[in-house]
């Protein structure tokens, strides 16, 4: 992968990219509110389970399929439809669609007019990023590793705001979760849409319950 591609990947997944990811906790806020996540140990377990059995795994599979379909408009449209239909709750649906829209708007800075896949379409975030990464010559395994790392970073940022850990603790968890991130990225690199599959019932229920949590810091 070229240096330009690496810089591009890091830019798209950086906290400064205007997808508003700081506003979403992907259900973590509810998990903290009901005591499912209380400290670094339970947070580590929660995140490992999300990577192996939760919607973040499905998102990685969808990203991989979209990367492969970057030049195939019809397949991308059906992946966007599938990814939308797979959302587990109203908030998660809003989160992935709003972020996908923001990502596609901002990504136009890297593509000559008319060359950004899904430009102007409604696409969930992993589909939008996968297609853009495929079109930009970013290697799939790198895109997946960076995507999953960005998910974990964002969750840790949320965990800091939720007072589950601090910055030193987050660094400890980034190191501890490296093997889980790498394992999920490896699996996803070899995946096809047949590998979609989750079973994080408790996490899904938490995401639904978050809709009525008051007060709250996050949109999901």
């Amino acid at each position: 992968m070229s240096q330009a591609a690496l810089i591009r990947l890091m830019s798209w997944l950086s906290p400064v990219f205007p997808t508003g990811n700081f506003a979403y906790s992907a259900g973590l806020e509810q998990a903290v509110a009901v005591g499912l996540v209380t400290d670094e140990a339970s947070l580590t377990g929660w995140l490992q389970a999300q990577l192996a059995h939760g919607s973040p795994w499905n998102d990685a599979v969808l990203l991989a399929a979209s990367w492969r379909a970057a030049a195939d408009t019809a397949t991308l449209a059906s992946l966007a439809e599938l990814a939308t239909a797979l959302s587990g709750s109203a908030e998660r649906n809003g989160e992935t669609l709003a972020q996908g829209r923001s990502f596609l708007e901002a990504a136009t800075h890297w593509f000559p007019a008319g060359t950004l896949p899904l430009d102007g379409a409604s696409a969930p975030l992993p589909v939008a990023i996968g297609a853009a990464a495929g079109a930009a010559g970013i290697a799939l395994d790198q895109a997946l590793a960076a995507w999953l790392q960005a998910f974990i970073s964002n969750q840790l940022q949320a965990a800091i705001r939720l007072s589950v850990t601090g910055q030193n603790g987050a660094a400890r968890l980034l190191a501890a979760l490296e093997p889980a991130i790498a394992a999920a990225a490896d699996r996803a690199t070899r995946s096809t849409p047949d590998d979609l599959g989750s079973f994080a019932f408790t996490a899904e229920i938490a995401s639904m319950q978050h809709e009525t949590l008051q007060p709250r810091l996050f949109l999901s």
Partner: protein
Amino acid sequence: MNQTLPLPPALQRTSGTGRMAVKTVNGQTRLDTFYQEGAAKIRIPRLPGQAAMEAVLINTSGGLTGGDRLAWDIDAGAGTALTLTTQACEKVYKASAGTADMTVSLKVGDRASLAWLPQETIVFERARLMRRLDADLAPDARLLAVEATIFGRQAHGERVREALFSDRWRIRRDGKLVHADNLRLEGDVDGALALPAVAGGEIAVATVLLVSETAEGLAGPLRDQLAACPAVQSSASFWRVAGSGKLLARFVARDSVALRKGLVPALSLLNEGAPLPKIWSL
């Protein structure tokens, strides 16, 4: 279901196909076409005074194991009201080879209402099950669907250390995908269920989906009802996909009895006054 790789005779397993179409006759839901083959049987109890029809699906082989094929293909024509259930829990036994395959195809016509309310699936140690549910809805059709799954025979203290469970739903309305769900556990099921984000050590789970114009108004009452039921961990969410409103609820409980304490009132509420099959009473 086309089977592209025929099994050698020694491994020949159960197969069954049940097909049924219903139509309206003078405002009443009545049988249109009917076909059953192999282990699949459909029984239609008489329900005097009811315009709706209930059909009970039966797998006469008493369970599924590796290599078994079971297919249900149901068509609820325009204006009909049909409730489907099963005679017994579907037990999925240890597979010595291959995977049990179950497919459910539902078609729901204009102004028709279909309730897919099978009893629980019980997944035993070393079971391998791949299940698919496809539903095609007309623009103003209504679908209520539940799938409840129990892992292991709790009375025997059996745990599930090695199994495959895959349940894939695709729900289309007016040709557009409005709901997809890919549930999957493979390998150490017990270990996965023990994770707090998965099921926190509970072994009974269920998903309920309602696609209907009335779904939005039922979301609040369902949430309130679920919040008041301590036996299950559950919640519900309503949103729109491709212009269709859908209400989704998930349940986790320690066993099938506790699960039903949450499910039965939820299904009663979402069935909007239509009676549930007798089998779905507490």
